[in-house]
Structure formats: structure tokens, C-alpha cells
């Protein structure tokens, strides 16, 4: 991930709480953000996501490592001089200022009329015209987040940091506000880091997703690669439903409890195959299995299956296809090429077979 156009480069950053001897929350984190790129940092709560973001903004001290912006080391640059915008959870609007004055807060360098023009422009871009005189408590959740973004964009930062900005919005609203925010950032050509715990959210809007687990970045890739070729068993389960099957590989086909499964050519040996539910077929020639449970998800059904030797698997079938019933017998097979993990390599996880 080297090359031109890197706006933000995080190298070997560790950070913790409670002074120098306190426990580390971030360990040796590397992250690059290219100009105009939208990067998500995905992790469960407590994984260090927010600390990473605060470290980049200069709001939390770095124990070791460097944060560079366009090649310039930010170690001695205070937050107010970094040119990095921040949209915290809940927006954190200034409760004593109107919407317009919130957005104009970072524009001290502009003179009155210029500032007013810039504020009006931003409000228009985020479809907030007419709300300029409102107080923050008079806004809806979605409006509040849009004002927070307008405020962060006002001084034209090189990077905007978004700390779970959509987490507290209603499900329906969330997608709409998220689309608005992403479109605005893309139009402005501003790079962004989105902190989130929601795998769907990270996948749907990001150019790249970095997964943070217990303070370390465990994989940093495009969403498609992260999904189809996770680096560890933990990641395989974290980024989506997966059936993990151990078996002996001859270098191209692995022998699993669900039958022979093709994978990208590699060394022969014991491997773990990562089988996604959409790769599992029902009712075609294969291994016989029992339907344990069926979950309806609108666009599809997830079918939980048990094979004779105790292995369980999950299959996704289109919602319009005939639905199997719990207790029915069926046959299972795996189609397409699956991703395999060398057992033991890069996996700190338990290696027994299961699904997540």
C-alpha cells in the first residue's frame, strides 16, 4: 500500500490509557488512507477503534509509532493544526450555538460575509437550508449528524474521521443518512475513516476495510477480498456467516464432511475451508443432511443443516425457492471455489469445525 496520493499514513502506532505504564489499547497499528479514499475501521466494541481515531486526530497521545499527513510527521502538531475533521457519536453539536454558528465555528479565519457564504453553501449541500437558525435540540437525529458533517467539512480538512456516526439512528433512517454522508464526502473529494462495528455498513460504503481486533489490525483489504479471502478463522466468521470445514487437501481439492470442495491451487496438506452460505447447495447430488432450522430474512432464507458425522453447515437459499422444513432430509454439496486457510498458519483460533 505504498504509492502516490497517500494523505494519511499511520505506522506502528501503539497507545494506551493510564500513563506510560498503563495497558495498551492499540498495538502496532499500520493504516494508510489515500486521497479521496473511504476507509472503514471495523471492530467490536473495546477493540480500540475509537482510540485509533482519537490518536489520529491528536486527541490521544501515541505511545510509539508515527502519524504522518502528506509526508509530514504530526507528532508535535496539536489537534487544531492538523486539518483533520471529526464527527463523533451523536454528533456532539455545540448545544449553545445555532446550526449556522455550529457550522461556522471552524471558520474563524474567514471574514463575516465569506464565512456566511461558506456556511450557506455547506448547509445547502447537506440539504439543511432553512435550519440555519435552529438550535441542536430542535433537530432530528439524522439532521444532527448532517450538521456535524457540515461543521467538520467547513474548514476543508484533508481527512474526516467518523466515529460510529450512524449507530444511534433508526434502521430506516440510517441507510439514507449514510448514503448522503458518503455522497457528500465523495463529491468533496475528502478522504474519510469510518469507525463502525457494523460489518454490512463497512462493506457497503468503503473502498477498504481494516479490521481491528484486540488493538491490532488483523486484515486491511477491499471488502470483496476481505469477504472471500479472510486471513484467519476469526475474520472468516467476523465478516459474515461461514461454515469452516477441516480436511485433507491434495493441492486443488479438499476432502470435507460436505464432500470434495475445489480451492485455489496450493500446497497439499490439512487445511480449513471457508464456505459461505451461498456456496452451499441443497437438493443436488451430495452428502445427506438434516434440516435443523430455517430463518427467513426477506431476500433469502438461511438453512441450518446437520450432517451425519455431527458437522453443521449453513446454506442460503433464495426466498422465492421452495422452503425446506425443519426435520426434513436433504442433500448438501459445495459449489464453486472456496478460500482455504492453512491450519495453524495465521490462525490463533480454535481449529475445530463449526459455523458462525
Amino acid at each position, binding site marked *: 500500500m505504498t504509492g502516490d496520493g497517500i494523505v494519511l499514513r499511520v505506522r506502528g502506532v501503539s497507545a494506551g490509557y493510564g500513563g506510560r505504564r498503563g495497558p495498551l489499547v492499540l498495538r502496532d497499528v499500520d493504516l494508510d488512507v489515500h486521497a479521496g479514499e473511504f476507509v472503514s475501521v471495523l471492530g467490536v466494541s473495546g477493540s480500540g477503534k475509537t482510540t485509533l481515531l482519537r490518536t489520529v*486526530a491528536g486527541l490521544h497521545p501515541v505511545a510509539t509509532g508515527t502519524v504522518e499527513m502528506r509526508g509530514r510527521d504530526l507528532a508535535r502538531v*496539536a489537534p487544531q493544526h492538523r486539518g483533520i475533521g471529526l*464527527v463523533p457519536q451523536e454528533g*456532539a453539536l*455545540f448545544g449553545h450555538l445555532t446550526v449556522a454558528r455550529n457550522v461556522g*465555528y471552524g471558520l474563524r479565519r474567514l471574514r463575516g460575509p465569506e464565512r456566511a457564504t461558506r456556511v450557506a453553501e455547506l448547509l445547502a449541500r447537506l440539504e439543511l437550508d432553512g435550519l440555519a437558525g435552529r438550535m441542536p*435540540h430542535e433537530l432530528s437525529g439524522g439532521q444532527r449528524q448532517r450538521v456535524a458533517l457540515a*461543521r*467538520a467539512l467547513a474548514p476543508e480538512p484533508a481527512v474526516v474521521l467518523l466515529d460510529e456516526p450512524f449507530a444511534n439512528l433508526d434502521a430506516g433512517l440510517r441507510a439514507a443518512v449514510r448514503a448522503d454522508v458518503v455522497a457528500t464526502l465523495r463529491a468533496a473529494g475528502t478522504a474519510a475513516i469510518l469507525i463502525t462495528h457494523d460489518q454490512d455498513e463497512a462493506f457497503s460504503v468503503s473502498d477498504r476495510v481494516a479490521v481491528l481486533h484486540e488493538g491490532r489490525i488483523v486484515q486491511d483489504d477491499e471488502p470483496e477480498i476481505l469477504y472471500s479471502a479472510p486471513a484467519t478463522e476469526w475474520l472468516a466468521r467476523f465478516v459474515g456467516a461461514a461454515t469452516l470445514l477441516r480436511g485433507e487437501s491434495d493441492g486443488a481439492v479438499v476432502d470435507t464432511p460436505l464432500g470434495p470442495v475445489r480451492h485455489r491451487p496450493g500446497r497439499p496438506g490439512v487445511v480449513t475451508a471457508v464456505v459461505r452460505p451461498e456456496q452451499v447447495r441443497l437438493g443436488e447430488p451430495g452428502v445427506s443432511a438434516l434440516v435443523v432450522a430455517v430463518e427467513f430474512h426477506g431476500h433469502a432464507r438461511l438453512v441450518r443443516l446437520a450432517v451425519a458425522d455431527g458437522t453443521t453447515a449453513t446454506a442460503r437459499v433464495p426466498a422465492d425457492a421452495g422452503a425446506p422444513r425443519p426435520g426434513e432430509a436433504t442433500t448438501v454439496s459445495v459449489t464453486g471455489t472456496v478460500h482455504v486457510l492453512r491450519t495453524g498458519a495465521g490462525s490463533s483460533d480454535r481449529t475445530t469445525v463449526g459455523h458462525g
Partner: protein
Amino acid sequence: MLAAGAAVAVLAALPLVYLVVRAGQAGGDRVVAVLTRPRTWELAANTVLLVAAVCLGCLVLGVTTAVLVVRIRLPAPGLWWVLASLPLAIPSYITAFAWLAAWPGLNGFWPVVGVMVLACTPYVTIPVLAALRLADAGPEDVARTLGRGPVAAFATVTLPQVLPAALAGSLLVALYTLSDFGAIALLRYQALTWAVHASYTGTLDRVTAAVLALVLTAFALAMVLAERRVRRRATAGRAVVATRRADPVSLGPWATAATATGLAAVAALSLLLPPAVLASRILRAGTAPDWVDLARSAVTTLALGAVAAALVVVLAVPVGVLAARYRGRSVGVVESLAYLGHGLPGIVVGLALVFLSLGLLPALYQTAPVLVFAYAVLFLPKAVGATRAAVERVPTSVEEVSRTLGRSALGTWFAVTGRQAWPGIAAGGLLVAVTTMKELPATLMLRPIGLDTLATDLWQHTSMGAYGAAAPAALLLVLVASVPAWFLSERGRRR
């Protein structure tokens, strides 16, 4: 329930109404004459000047203290929290007395300002401490990324968040400074409370005293209304949950030591100086205090406190329950009237009840029942507030279940609501007892001849210049008064 509440409200409003009636009986001309004479204006100006100076002092000292305690990393953080609220334990007249005992002849504007600022600052510090602790650090983080340094970010973003709390606190300070009699009279500053007392005891000029008392009441009620408005605005629409609390800043060892020393110096001045002066006075007096006299005053004080607390709780329960459980205009009126005493200076209630007892029931003039009634009017708001809060914490659904299980409304109160609410109600009663025991101006005007409380004991010895003889009573009062301050600071910290 409404009838009982209404009866209590009528009792609470009686003194003020009677005062207005008596002033009116004197005729419009007399009232206008008193109102327009230069002396009245001078007294009002003195009072306003004092209130403004004390408010400003408390605002600066209180906000500074709160900011230092919350935002600077100090050794023993809990200690500073308690120290900041403890001065409430020492009544202003005790501090004034201690200063007088240390420097006899002290008097006038600046000493009164000093005493009142030290005594009243916690009314600003405590709410600002709470507001700062609850403040969301998110906006301050954003302000840093938008080009402000740490101090500028705090000043433009976090400080405005806590300003309404500080303002509400300083309006309470204004109210207590307006109503203060002891410190003002001891340090001979010519404010309205002093003038009401002087014109009543000196010249027995009833009309002047009544009119001045009404002017004072108008000021006080204005403060109460202003405080209510500010507080309502402060809480409106601020239901934002703090996603992150700000971490305290670590200063260097020298700056930390300097901060701690500064805070300790203010605490020592307001908390240690008065008891230290009192103790040294007792030791220097040489002769042993008059233990019998002191014991008699102490017992009287305790008894009055207990009786007043019991009466006030009985009166407060119907009003508190109404306020907690029912909405509506009549309930609002009842509650507002019950809270009237909060805005009535002790000297005004004292004067009003002197008139009332002389005018309606001369047999009761200067008897204990009238004195206890005065306490009830003055301190009813404390018990109503406590009762209301305690009852509101009992969910109505619990009462409804009790009703469906066959209990009557009253039976439910005794079996469920009252059972769960009584600790809060009792705490209110305790607060009333302690406040009663410290009360000075109304007690001075209404006490039966020959009956002395610790406060009046102190007052009489001091007015004769016998500081040594007054010191034991003062020290006892400090002990008594520490009880609710301790409660208050505990509750503040637990929140």
C-alpha cells in the same frame, strides 16, 4: 388530598398576605412616603450593591474551583469535591462572628462581601461540578479539530454548557444574600434586612418595617422566579447523553502543587478559620463556659428543631404527594404557595407573624407555637421538595397493582408508596430540623421571653461584645450544621 394541600398552602401564604394587609391599612400615603424617602432608596441601593458583589465573587470563585477540581488531575480528587461543598455547614453569621472575634471592630461592605462569598460559593460550585462532570467531551474534541487550542476549546464549548448551572447557582446566592440577617447585622452593614430589624426594634415603627419588609420580599421573589427560569432553560433540550467524559489534565508538579494549595487555602479560610478562632476564644476566656446555660439553650434548640421538623413533614406530605402525582392548575397553585417560604427572608416571616399574633391572637404573641409556625412557613419548601422527589421515585404502576389487589388508595399509600418513600421524606425532615436549629432572625423576633436557642445565645453575647462567652454556642452550631452539608456532598459525589 387537594383540600389538605390547599389548607397547607393557605397557611404558607398567610404571613405574607397579612403583611400586605397591615401595610395597606396604614394608608396609601404612608406607604408611598416610606417608599419614596431617600433612606429607603439608600437601603435598597446598599442591598443591591452587596448582592451584586457577592454574586460576582461566588460566580468567579465557584466556577474556578469547579473547573480546577474536575479538569485538573489532583491528588485525592474526592477530598476536593467534599471540601468544595462543606462551607455550607458554616452559617454566614458564624463566619462573621469568627472574623469579629479575631478582629474586633471589623465592619462594613467588604467584610460582609468576604463572609457571604465564602459561605455561599458552594451554591455555585456544587451545580457546576455536577454539570462539568456530566458534560460530553465530544464537542470539545470537535472544537480541537476545528482550530481551537485546549483552553479556547474549553472556554468556547464546555464553559457555555455549564453556564446556566452557574447562573442558577448565583441567583440562589443572590436570594440568600438578600435574606441574610446575621452576618449583615453583626458586621453592621445597612442593608434591607438590617433596616427591617432596626426599625422594628429601635423605633417600633411598624409601617416602615412592614414596607421595607415588602420591598425586600419583592426583591427575593424576583430572584426565585429568575432562578426558576434559568434552571428550566438550563435543563430544556439538554438530554444529550455524554458519549465520553473529559479526562483531567495533568499539570507539572509545581502547577499541581500551586492549584492544590490555592484550593486548600480557600477551604481553610472558610472551614478551618471559624472553628479555630472560636476554640482559641474559649481557651483564652480563662473562665469555664456557663455549662448550664449552654445546655439549656442546646436542649431548647434541639426540641424546637424536632417539633418544627415533625410539623413540617406532616404539612409537606399532602403537598408533596399532590405535586408528584397530579397535574393541573390548582395543584400548581398549591405547590407554588407552599414554595413561597423559599423566597421569604426569615426577618420578613418573623415580622409578619409578630403582626399576625398581635392582631389576631394576642395571647399567642411570643409563644412557642407561633415560633414553630414561622419555621414551618420558612422551611416547608425543603420538605415538600424532598417528599415530591421521594414519591416520584415510586412507580405509579406499583400503586396500580396494589389497587388491583384490593387495597384502597389510602391503604396503598401506607402499604406501598409511603413505605418506599419514607427515607427521602425523613431526610427532608432532618434538613428542616437542622435548618431550624440555625435560624436566627425569626427566632429573635418571635421567641418567648427567657427562651434562648444557640443562635440567640450567640447573638446576645456578641451584641454585648462578650465573644468568649458566645464561642461555645457558635461551635455547637457548626457541629449541628455539618449534618446536611455532609449529606449533600455525599449525594453529589454518588451522582
